[in-house]
């Protein structure tokens, strides 16, 4: 769990689900990423979302590493994923 501090603006990775759905043809908030900063693996929905209207900055709640950074503008998506070493996407879910 992240530090409890005066961070009333931040959201969960789940709030980026719509943006991720524009890019990936999968349900991405339950996809898992491994963090380049600390090695921990967790669902994208459990990352912390910053950036507001400027873009989506998804950070590791353990070490604060910016795993995914996404800006959508002028007909293009710019995606920086240097903070992710591995991404795992399930193509089937349990019924």
């Amino acid at each position, binding site marked *: 769990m992240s530090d*409890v501090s005066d*961070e009333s603006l931040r959201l*969960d990775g789940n709030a980026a689900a719509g943006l991720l759905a524009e890019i990936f043809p999968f*349900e991405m*908030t339950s996809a898992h990423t491994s963090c380049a900063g600390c090695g921990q693996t967790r669902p994208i929905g459990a990352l912390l979302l910053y950036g507001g209207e400027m873009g989506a900055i998804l950070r590791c709640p353990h070490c604060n590493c910016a795993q995914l950074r996404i800006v959508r503008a002028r007909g293009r998506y710019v995606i920086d994923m240097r903070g992710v070493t591995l991404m795992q*996407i399930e193509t089937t879910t349990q019924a």
Partner: protein
Amino acid sequence: MVAIRPRLAWQRTTVRELIEETPRVRSLVLDAPGWQGHSAGQHLDVRLTAEDGYQAERSYSIASAPVEPHVTITVERLDDGEVSPYLTDELHPGDELELRGPIGGWFTWRPTEGGPLLLVAGGSGIVPLMAMIRQKAALRSPVPVRLLYSSRAYEEIIFREELDRLAAEVGELTVEHTLTRSQPEGWSGYNRRIDRAMLEEFTWAAEERPLTFVCGPTPLVESVATLCVEMGYAPERVKTERFGPTGGAV
């Protein structure tokens, strides 16, 4: 079940009915012919377009259970909001509304996933959790559910009457309120912000390995999620949906 989903497209829906839940909160019941169904906890995006082409988009949690025939969102009017006052005050039945969804697969619950469930809501954070409760009721799921709901005042409790009725009628559903700013005369419930003592009195022991969903203003969500983990809940079984600073009461 396959997690590959069709491209999310904007669809036109028609407002069927508007329900005043509290003075600041409206539910919008929608006719959405293109709707493919959803899971409890998911949200949808609404897009408004002005005559000069200017557009604004916002996300709203789906309040209706997946088995219900119409998609319903429940919106709290934010005083400085650009979109919410339009949805709560301007829309009439018969108006069209563009939306896309459902969105989000991590903060969801199906009764087949089991429990027991701890649901903690602050203000309008009740909305996605209400979809879960409504789904449990509609399917008569035996999964035990406990809801702890924080509001500023009695009049601001969203879905109050329905929650009272469901708590009385539905097996294995317990609802507890805490009112943090003002309480009606004779109020015997909690009257403070959610803290460890309140959670320990109300919720499941860690050994029961509950699934926890916490939704509402970011400070409340972070505080409660941290308390759950301190009480021994497995962090991966505590799911949060932060609404940001203006997520309603408390």
